[in-house]
C-alpha cells in the first residue's frame, strides 16, 4: 500500500505545473482560447519535449509505456490550469492505434504523436447514443479497394485540430474502427462550454482504402470501452486538480472579502460549506486513485469497469457540488467571466458528464454488481 507518486511521476508533474504556471497562466490561456486554432502550438511542443505526449504510448515508438497512474499528476496540473489542448482526444485515438493498429498504422502515427507533430481525434459519439458506447449507426460498407463510410458523429473533441481521426462505424461484423485523414471529413466546428475545440462530423460517402481499417473488423467495442475507461480515469484526475483550485480560490476569497466589517469567512454558515468542499476534494482524490490504479492493473474487465464507474459517480457528484458552491460563495463575482473560477465551473460541469454522468455510471455499476452475485 502506497499512495505516493514515484519520483519520476512527481518530477514530471512538477515540471508540467511549473511550465503551466509560467506559460499557461489564466491571461495567456484567454488568448489561446480566442486564437484561430483555439490551442497553442508552443505549449504542445513543450509538452512533447517534456514527454507528456509520449508518456501513455509504447516505448517501441518513442513513448514511455505509461499508464493512468503515471498521468495523474499531469492531469491534475491540467485541471488546475484549465488546459485546452487536445490532449485527451489525441491520447484516446493514439492508444487505439497502439492497441489495434498494424505495423504500418502504428509506425506512421505513433512516433509523430510522441514527437508532438501529430494530433488526433476519436469520432465515436452519435446523436441519440448518449453514453452508450455500443450504439453506432454510422455504417461502413465494403467497396472496391476499401470502405465507404456513411453517418454522423457529434462532439468530436479536437477534431478541427487533428491530422487523423479514428472513426467508429458498423460493418456486417459489428463495430469497427477506421483511421481517416481529416481532409476526408466535413466538419461543423465549435467551441465547447469548457472552451475546447470540437466538431460535429458528417460522413457522406467517405471512401477510404482497405488499409484504413484499424484492428479486427467488428472487434472495436471492447477497445472503445477500454480506452474510454482510461480516459475517464484521466478526467477524474483532471477534476481533482480543478476541484482543488476551486476550493483554494474560494477559501482565499472567504479570507479577503469583507462584509459587515469582517471577512465573510468568519461566518459559520460559509465555513461549514467550504469544509464540505474540501471533504469532497479528499474523497474525489481517493476515487481518482482508484480509477487510475484499476484502469492500469485490474484483474478483469469487470473489476476495471466497477472501479471506474464508482470513481466517476463520486467525481461527478464532487464536480457539481464544488463548482456550484465555489460560484455561490463568491457571490456575484463568481458569475463573472472575468474570474477564473467561472471557467473552472465550466470545465467541472463538462467533466461531470464526460464519458457518462453519475446516473449513467450508477446504472453500469449496478448492472455489473448484480451480474457478479
Amino acid at each position, binding site marked *: 500500500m502506497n499512495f505516493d507518486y514515484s519520483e519520476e511521476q512527481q518530477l514530471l508533474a512538477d515540471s508540467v505545473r511549473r511550465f503551466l504556471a509560467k506559460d499557461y497562466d489564466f491571461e495567456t490561456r484567454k488568448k489561446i482560447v480566442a486564437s484561430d486554432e483555439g490551442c497553442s502550438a508552443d505549449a504542445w511542443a513543450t509538452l512533447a519535449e517534456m514527454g507528456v505526449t509520449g508518456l501513455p504510448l509504447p516505448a517501441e515508438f518513442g513513448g514511455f509505456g505509461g499508464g493512468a497512474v503515471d498521468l495523474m499528476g499531469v492531469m491534475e496540473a491540467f485541471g488546475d490550469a484549465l488546459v485546452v489542448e487536445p490532449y485527451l482526444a489525441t491520447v484516446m485515438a493514439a492508444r487505439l492505434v497502439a492497441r489495434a493498429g498494424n505495423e504500418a498504422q502504428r509506425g506512421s502515427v505513433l512516433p509523430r504523436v510522441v514527437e508532438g507533430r501529430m494530433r488526433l481525434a476519436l469520432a465515436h459519439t452519435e446523436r441519440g447514443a448518449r453514453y452508450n458506447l455500443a450504439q453506432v449507426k454510422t455504417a461502413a460498407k465494403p467497396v472496391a479497394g476499401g470502405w465507404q463510410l456513411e453517418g454522423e458523429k457529434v462532439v468530436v473533441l479536437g477534431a478541427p485540430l487533428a491530422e487523423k481521426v479514428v472513426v467508429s462505424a458498423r460493418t456486417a461484423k459489428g463495430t469497427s474502427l477506421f483511421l481517416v485523414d481529416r481532409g476526408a471529413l466535413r466538419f461543423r466546428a465549435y467551441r465547447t462550454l469548457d472552451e475546447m475545440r470540437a466538431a460535429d462530423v458528417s460522413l457522406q460517402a467517405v471512401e477510404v482504402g482497405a488499409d484504413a481499417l484499424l484492428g479486427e473488423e467488428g472487434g472495436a467495442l471492447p477497445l472503445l470501452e477500454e480506452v474510454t475507461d482510461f480516459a475517464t480515469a484521466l478526467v477524474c484526475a483532471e477534476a481533482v486538480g480543478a476541484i482543488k483550485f476551486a476550493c483554494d480560490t474560494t477559501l482565499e476569497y472567504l479570507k479577503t472579502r469583507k462584509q459587515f466589517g469582517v471577512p465573510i469567512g468568519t461566518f459559520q454558515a460559509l465555513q*461549514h460549506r467550504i469544509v464540505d468542499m474540501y471533504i469532497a476534494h479528499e474523497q474525489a482524490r481517493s*476515487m481518482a486513485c482508484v480509477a487510475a490504479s484499476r484502469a492500469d492493473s485490474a484483474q478483469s474487465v469487470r473489476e476495471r469497469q466497477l472501479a471506474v464507474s464508482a470513481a466517476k459517480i463520486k467525481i461527478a457528484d464532487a464536480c457539481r457540488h464544488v463548482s456550484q458552491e465555489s460560484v455561490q460563495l463568491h457571490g456575484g463575482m463568481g458569475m463573472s467571466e472575468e474570474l477564473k473560477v467561472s471557467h473552472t465551473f465550466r470545465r467541472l460541469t463538462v467533466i461531470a458528464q464526460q464519458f457518462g454522468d453519475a446516473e449513467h455510471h450508477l446504472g453500469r455499476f449496478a448492472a455489473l454488481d448484480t451480474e457478479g452475485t
Partner: protein
Amino acid sequence: MDLNYSQEELAFRDEVRAWLNANLPQDLRDKVANYGELGREDLLRWHRILAKKGWVAPAWPKEWGGTDWNLVQRYIFEEELGFVGSPPLIPFGLSMCGPVLLRFGSEAQKRRFLPRIYDGEDFWCQGYSEPGSGSDLASLKTKATRDGNEYVVNGQKIWTTLGHCADWIFCLVRTDSNMAKKQEGISFLLIDMKSPGITVRPLVLMDLGREVNEVFFEDVRVPAGNLVYEENKGWTVAKYLLGHERMNTGRVGASKRELAKLKAFASAQPGNDGEPLIRDPRFRDKLTRVEVELMALEITNLRFLDQMRRTGQSPGADVSMLKIKGTEIQQAITELAMQAVGPLAQPFVPVGSDAEFDAFTAGLAPRYCNYRKTTIYAGSNEIQRNIISKMTLGL
C-alpha cells in the same frame, strides 16, 4: 502508487481474521448480527478473550501489554474487528483513560489502573458532558473542592455511556472558578463509581435502549491521589485525548460488514413488482452511492495512514472528516435497511406473551433511530466542521 496491501500485510490480515473467526463466541456474534443489546458481561467477555491473546490494547507500549504492531497492522486489526462483527471494545478504558495515564499518570496510577483496564477487571466510563455543557465542554460546572487529602465533588454529568455498567469514571471537574479563561481551572479526576453520593439514573433513548445515563455527584469524596496530571490542567489532558490517534474513527470495517448485509438483505426483499428490491433503480442508486462513499472513505483513511507512516505526522484535524463521512455512511446504511423492509419496519415492541415477531426485522427501525446519535456524539459533526475550518483552513 499501489492501493493494495503488501503480501505481509495481507498475511497479517488473514491471520487476524482467522483467529477472530475462530475465537469470537457464536452467541456474541449472533447478538451483534441481530443488533441485540450488549450488557456488561457480554462486553467484558470479549474483552477478556482478546486480553488473554494479548490483543486488547495494540497501541499501548509493549511493557503494558501492547503488541508492537505498526500503524497499518493496528488499522487492519481494528478493521477486522469491525468486519467480523465482534462486540465493540469499549473505548473508555482502553483508548481514553489508558492513553491518558500512559502520558500523564504517575507511576503509582499506572501500576494501579492499567493492568486492571487491560485485563477487563475495571469497566470505565467517561464523565465529560453536562446538562449545560455539550459542544461547549469547557463551560462545565461540576465542582471539585479540595478538603485535606480529598476532593469533594458536586454536580452532574449526562449522556454517560454505559455508566450503569461502570466501576470507574474519569471526569473533567472544575477546581477553580476564578480563572480568566474557562479552559483553565479544570482538572482530570478518577472516581470510583461505588463512592457514596453517586447516583446513576438511566436516560432511555427513543429506541428504548439502555445505553446512556445521568450521573449525579453529591458530596462525593475522592482521594487527592486520583487527580491525573496537575490541578487545573485537565484541559491539557482532554485536548491530548482529542488529538490522540483516531485513525479508525471512520469505522470502515463495520460499515463494510453492514453494507454487505444490506445488499444480501435487499436481494432477498421483494420490491413492489415482486422482483428483488436491489433491482429497483431508485433503491439501487441510493445503495450504490453509499457504497461509493464507503470506498472513498476507505481510500481516504488509507491515504491518511500512509501519509502518517511516511512522515510520522498525524493528519491532525483532517481526521475530523473521517468522523463526518463515517457517521453519515453508518446512518445511511441503517436508513436503507429500514427502508428495505417497507411496512414491516413498524413492529417495535411485542405486547403479550404470544406476540412473537422477527427480532431482526423489528430491530431495523430502532437501529435507524439509535444511529442518529452518531453525528451528535464524540464532537457533533458541526463541531468537527468547526475544527477543520479553524485548524486546517485557517478560518
